[in-house]
């Protein structure tokens, strides 16, 4: 399956319509139009402070937009829609000494489903161990989470997210603290989950290389969305590299830029 075909024509699962978010009197997100289709990996790229994490939080309803509308699985993002989302925040090193094993962390993914007053039992353990095998971490099940490498912790977090049978994975800076070999393996895993389970992925990163080589669709963000389309077009533009280090203000807006609001003005 070529990247170009992945997801196109599938139903839209997440959509932002003219979303504005302000913080302390400044816009951190301006007029965002964006969508993600089922079974596609959408990469959102932009420098630090571009509003990437905010954008993710808006999509899952952790932050309410000041203007505009968001829909997740056709609903307003809330508790119900979130049940279908697996969310992986940035790896935090503050958690290193937290006294849990890899298996404990994966089991957390099922806590909501188990309900109050009861503990994970044999069935939950079995599911958790299956998920650990799926991400190739079965032999680390009993190790303390804190001693695992960044890449291993990330796989554990994926396994935890998969426990709740999500339709969409949301990843915040998945490359942070992960060496390049582990990164490559990780994106192969994401592609496998997309192809075998029809999982959709939205990930944000400041690493343009990672996004363009592993995403089916790319959105370039710096407060506004400057590009939304296929990664080949995004990276082939030599301006892209120049622009990315400093200020993001370009780019190609063409007919493929399906949801881009500038389509009508520029093209």
């Amino acid at each position, binding site marked *: 399956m070529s990247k170009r075909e992945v997801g196109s024509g599938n139903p839209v699962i997440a959509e932002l319509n003219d979303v504005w978010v302000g913080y302390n009197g400044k816009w951190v997100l301006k007029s965002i139009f964006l969508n993600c289709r089922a079974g596609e990996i959408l990469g959102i790229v932009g420098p630090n402070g571009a509003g990437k994490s905010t954008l993710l939080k808006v999509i*899952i309803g952790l932050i309410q937009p000041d203007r505009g509308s968001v829909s997740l699985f056709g609903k307003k993002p809330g508790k119900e829609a979130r049940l279908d989302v697996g969310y992986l925040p940035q790896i935090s090193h503050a958690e290193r000494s937290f*006294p849990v094993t890899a298996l404990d962390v994966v089991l957390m993914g099922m806590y909501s489903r188990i309900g109050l007053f009861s503990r994970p039992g044999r069935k939950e353990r079995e599911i958790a161990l299956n998920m650990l095998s799926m991400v190739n971490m079965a032999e680390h099940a009993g190790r303390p989470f804190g001693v695992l490498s960044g890449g291993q912790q990330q796989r554990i977090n994926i396994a935890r997210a998969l426990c709740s049978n999500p339709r969409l994975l949301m990843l915040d800076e998945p490359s942070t603290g992960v060496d390049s070999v582990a990164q490559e393996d990780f994106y192969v895993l994401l592609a496998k989950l997309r192809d075998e389970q029809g999982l959709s992925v939205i990930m944000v990163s400041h690493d343009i290389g990672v996004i363009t080589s592993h995403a089916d669709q790319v959105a370039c963000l710096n407060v506004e969305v400057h590009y939304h389309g296929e990664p080949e077009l995004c990276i082939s533009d030599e301006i892209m590299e120049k622009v990315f280090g400093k200020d993001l203000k370009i780019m190609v807006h063409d007919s493929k830029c399906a949801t881009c609001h500038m389509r009508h003005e520029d093209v």
Partner: protein
Amino acid sequence: MIEILNFEFMRNAFLAGIILSIVLAVVSFFVVLKRYSFIGVGVSHSAFGGVALGSLLGISPTLTALGFAVIVSNAIGYVGRRERLSTDTAIGIFFALAMALGVIFIGLSDKYNTDLFGYLFGNILAITRTDIVVVGVLGTIVLFACYFFFKELLFVAFDSEVAFVSGMPVVFLDHFFLTILAFAVVISIKIVGIVLVSALLVIPGAAASQVTDRYVSMIAVSIGVALISTTGGLVISYYADLASGATIVTFASLIFFIMVGVGKLRKR
């Protein structure tokens, strides 16, 4: 060792000490993991306002201290969630406010109350049978609360954002835990005192975290540290004629430093 148990007040002190050791050890497990140490300081000091109010109105200071501690801990949690204020700012404000109210209440009361010193630094001579019942009942409530909501509290402590996205009632759980924390503080006041109780909300969990990497063993070690500190501290304070609360906290700190050393050796 046996002869100190001949005194009723020492028997009461030991009994109360053992119950509150277990309670504080479990609460301290979460305090350390959630990084709530300073909240513990704020909540315990706010109990002073409650004690003074109870003594002014002539009602049970334990009851009013509980009211103050519950209100202040939840207020800290509420304000700390707002965007414009950080938790430590909220603690700084409510902590001082409750202490200031305490001083005003003492001033309004015409009787000179020697008891207040006991509440500040602990007074095992003042522990009555009723106190034991109060410690037992409130302590049991805290332990059951932690038991029934254990996996939820653990998940929220691990990563509250992920817990929220996966459907956990994070805000409720935070206030629930802050209320538990207030209960734990209030039952410790008579033995350890308002000023020093926050130490026992931190030291057992912190000491345990140095030598364990599973939550079950961390809780077990935390309980062990608290029990040894409290009973050992009581014995030492009796024979050396020292203030009980201060001796317990000093002894607990000593155990903490030993645990730090043990943890370093183990990692080699």
